């Protein structure tokens, strides 16, 4: 069965979606990712959708689910690299992906995650790596 690979990068998980998602694949990704967050204790999830041409309400819901589920497991989710056409379509469809953080690309997404997590950790340990 097809699976979307989930990469571990330090405290974060990176998922790059490069194939057309049909429903079962998306659902598998959802459960895989949540399992993985739990197993690795990841603090952030980056979902790169720069190669995705279509996000419909089902996909939107999966992304929203991943964000909410990760949040419960204490990890933030950032969706990165959404194509302009996809963004316009989602807005027209009435699906603004509330509660999901977004960033222009993986690098910015990583920065965003760091800044969010650093805020929590600044109190106990003062080791700021970037900037």
């Amino acid at each position: 069965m097809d699976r979307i690979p989930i990469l571990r990068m330090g405290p974060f998980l990176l998922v790059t979606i490069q194939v057309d998602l049909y429903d079962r694949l998306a659902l598998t990704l959802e459960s895989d990712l949540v399992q993985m967050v739990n197993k690795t204790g990841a603090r952030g999830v980056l979902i790169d959708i720069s190669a995705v041409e279509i996000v419909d309400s089902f996909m939107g819901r999966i992304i929203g689910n991943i964000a909410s589920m990760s949040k419960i497991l204490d990890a933030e989710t950032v969706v990165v690299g959404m194509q302009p056409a996809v963004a316009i379509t989602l807005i027209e469809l009435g699906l603004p992906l509330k509660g999901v953080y977004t960033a222009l690309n993986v690098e910015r997404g990583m920065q965003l995650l760091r800044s969010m997590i650093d805020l929590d950790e600044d109190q106990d340990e003062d080791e700021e790596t970037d900037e």
Partner: protein
Amino acid sequence: MMVISLSKDVMRIIKDQDVVPFRNRVKEKATKIKMGLVNQTKLITAASELVRNMLKYGNGGEIVIEVVSRGRENGVRLTFKDKGPGIADISLAMKDGYSTGKSLGLGLPGTKRLVSEFDLKSEVGKGTTVMIIKWANG
């Protein structure tokens, strides 16, 4: 003005995996009539929503994919036919935020906003037919 059909394909959708080839076929047609990227995305997203509805409520069905023209405009027309339970109250189904399934409830009205023309016919117990047209620059 008259809408003339230039080419016609029929696809049967029975299972989940049929959706991706169907989307590709729609994309192919849209590219052929030089539809812009944003409009293409809107059309395919709308098609995706409708085919999903068809699978969920109508147990699959048949889709007619056509390239149509009206005057100097070209467009893609999709007709989704299922033999499902049908929709009892169409005006209610077209209201933002309404859903019988466990989705976000923006399926039909959201889809309508994405396309140039939208027509829904349904008979309880017989099935539902949805027709959409997206003009290349509409």
